């Protein structure tokens, strides 16, 4: 069973009759680490729909065109201050243990164990249903990349949901 076909049929039937996947002909060239892991600053990019309950709005989960915005999650955020808004999975289950989709606490534990140099001061959060990717690719992803560069991040771990 090819899930890409199942999902494409589902989105076309429920929301966007002209939906199709954004595809690339050639892979992105990996950028090698220039330091040991014990020297690296590591950030997370999650598509779990994580947001700060008290100061950020949830992602739009009812829109047929999705939501291509992102939220910045400071690393020192208590996990109890984080909400999840996403139409594609059971967020209540993941809220019981945020590490399932957004391993913020776990990454900080790995830092304490000396597995990485340090955790980045900020992480980036998207909601994974983004059927129209033009603005994401042209504007938003470069903006997120620039924010991560500003934080002098060496390695980004992308965690879907």
């Amino acid at each position, binding site marked *: *069973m090819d899930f890409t076909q199942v999902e494409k049929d589902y989105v076309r039937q429920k929301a966007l009759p002209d939906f199709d996947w954004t595809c690339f002909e050639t892979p992105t060239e990996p950028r090698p680490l220039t330091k*040991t892991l014990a020297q690296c600053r590591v950030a997370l990019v999650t598509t779990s729909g994580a947001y700060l309950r008290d100061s950020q709005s949830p992602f739009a989960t009812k829109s047929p065109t999705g939501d291509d915005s992102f939220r910045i999650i400071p690393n020192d955020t208590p996990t109890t201050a984080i909400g999840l808004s996403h139409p594609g999975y*059971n967020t209540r289950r993941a809220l019981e243990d945020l*590490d399932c989709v957004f391993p913020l606490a776990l990454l900080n534990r790995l830092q304490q164990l000396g597995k990485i140099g340090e955790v980045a001061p900020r992480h980036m959060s998207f909601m994974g249903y983004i059927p129209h990717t033009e603005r994401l690719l042209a504007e938003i992803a470069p903006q997120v990349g620039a924010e991560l560069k500003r934080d002098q991040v060496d390695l980004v771990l992308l965690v879907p949901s």
Partner: protein
Amino acid sequence: MGLATVSLTLVKEMTELVKPSKALYLQHPFGLTLGDVGDAATHTAVLQDCLRYAAEPLPAGTIIDLPYRWTKDDLRERQLRKEAH
């Protein structure tokens, strides 16, 4: 610009369309990417795999099959058929 990245993926076919620089495939349900609620050992193992492969030189577009499988129930299979959330 460029940043070193490692992407986890739950759907290999989707990743083959997007072709990120380096991806790790694991067969967990949506919403339980690193493993079940409370399964800290699996969460830790998955994240440490991300770090291990981040440091390893691999050809562009490599998708590594991680050994993690969801055996608790049929949630993943039902999700892949759009029969469960």
